[in-house]
């Protein structure tokens, strides 16, 4: 797998990996769906997707020996992208069905949307649908060509709360709550929304991701 366009889609047996894979192919990356440590470590980039429960996901990551693999991959400074549950898993802990430890790569917590908003109105959870992103770091290469207040597709009941506000890349408002919908820290970027389900603007993020992967390879010879 010694290819400069190869991207490992980390498979921990939860969620629809095909749509992430199709989006990668669409922009000219070579996706490999795998849970094999050796294969993952050989790829030029990696994506941690996922839909489902936090605790079960961490269990699966541990069982498949992927916790250390993800940490090692990120330490190697190659581009790493987390999506949806893949964003939440990067955090220190989650309160989903009790308290669970996360990968602790980004300090902070995963919390549930409130049941009622400030006007005591029922909040529809999960949030399922399109919502706007407010971009906090204008110069991030991954957001190239994405307008502020652009709509992206969200499906989630929990949201992340980073300890360090500096890591917040995008903010979204749901039920009156401004929450972090994207983080960026060094070679790690992760989104609560699904770029692979967000039509042309979402594909633009994948396209930017490909350019980041290619550019990095060029620098490293």
């Amino acid at each position, binding site marked *: 797998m010694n290819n400069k366009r190869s991207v490992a889609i980390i498979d921990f047996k939860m*969620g*629809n990996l*095909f*749509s992430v894979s*199709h*989006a990668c192919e*669409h922009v000219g990356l070579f996706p490999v769906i795998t849970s094999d440590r050796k294969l993952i470590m050989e790829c030029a980039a990696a994506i941690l997707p996922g*839909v*489902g*429960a936090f605790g079960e996901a961490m269990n699966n990551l541990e069982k498949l020996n992927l916790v250390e693999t993800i940490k090692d991959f990120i330490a190697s400074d190659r581009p790493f992208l987390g999506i949806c549950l893949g964003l939440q898993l990067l955090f220190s802990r989650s309160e989903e069905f009790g308290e669970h430890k996360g990968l602790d790569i980004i300090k902070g917590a995963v919390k549930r949307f409130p*049941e009622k908003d400030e006007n005591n109105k*029922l*909040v*529809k*959870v*999960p949030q*399922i*649908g*399109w*919502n*706007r992103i407010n971009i906090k770091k204008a110069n991030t290469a991954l957001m190239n060509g994405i*307008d502020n*207040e*652009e*709509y992206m*597709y969200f*499906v*989630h*009941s929990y949201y992340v709360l980073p300890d360090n506000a500096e890591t917040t890349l995008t903010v979204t*408002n749901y039920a*009156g709550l401004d929450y972090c919908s994207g983080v960026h820290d060094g070679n790690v970027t992760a989104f609560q929304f699904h770029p*692979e*389900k*967000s*039509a*042309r*603007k*979402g*594909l633009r993020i994948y396209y930017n991701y490909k350019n980041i992967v290619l550019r990095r390879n060029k620098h490293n010879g």
Partner: protein
Amino acid sequence: MAKTVRIIPRLDIKGPNLVKGIHLEGLRVMGKPEQFARYYYETGADELLYMDVVASLYNRNSLHDIIMRTAREIFIPLTVGGGLRTIDDICEVLRAGADKVVLNTAAINNPQIVKEASREFGSSTIVIAIEAIRQPDGRYLAYTDNGRQHTGVDVFEWAKKVAELGAGEIIITSVDHEGTGKGYDHHLTGTVAASVPIPVIAHGGAGNKQHVKEVITEAGADAVSVASLFHYDFIAGHRHQLELNAEGEGNIEFLKSKRGYSKIEPIGLKEMKLYLHSCGVDCRQELSEIQ
């Protein structure tokens, strides 16, 4: 801030064809689903809903190949239903590329499958379809098999129950209004939307763009499923292409006769969204289009 409402074209499929009925029956062949799907994606659909409308009768869902092809070129959520009975059926459709599945008959026959499926695949993957028919005494009862099969289940009780069991969304169909063009059933949609903590998709009865707006602003729908308005608009613009393609099953006489449908005022997705936007309804637009 107002919630963002989804506009979801609904594609009813029979065999290889896109069909449209009245009261979920009397199917007309409209054309090849792929052509419609691609057009809706390109013009701003927020999601696509595929229903195999004869699957329940044969106990099988035949959308596998259509979904497989669609998922490669369409990058918005795909929701698939019709004839899904078991966890394995759901798994197969998700593997083909669906993001969400719709259950109706299976859930009514065995409510525990809602719990099981939402635990296995996540709540947000499981959409429950409720086909409601208003009774002479004013009650709404749930039906299955496209409004053919009486179940005796009260719609409002059932909606609360499936939410408790872990469903992520409800799509509520008024069988009485479906395909008639007389507007959505606001009482039905509004009552369900106000009583469950999960999103509710309105379906059945849109005859014009005002109907779509009203079910959002007056009945509180979180999303709206639209078929005829968009299908007839697409057909009007692509009639020649469709005639070459539509063959095989069903009643294609109507396409040949070039007749429209009197109560339907066709409209495209872009125009629909611009109209909703002008009424203060928040729905996704590509920013370049409204600036």
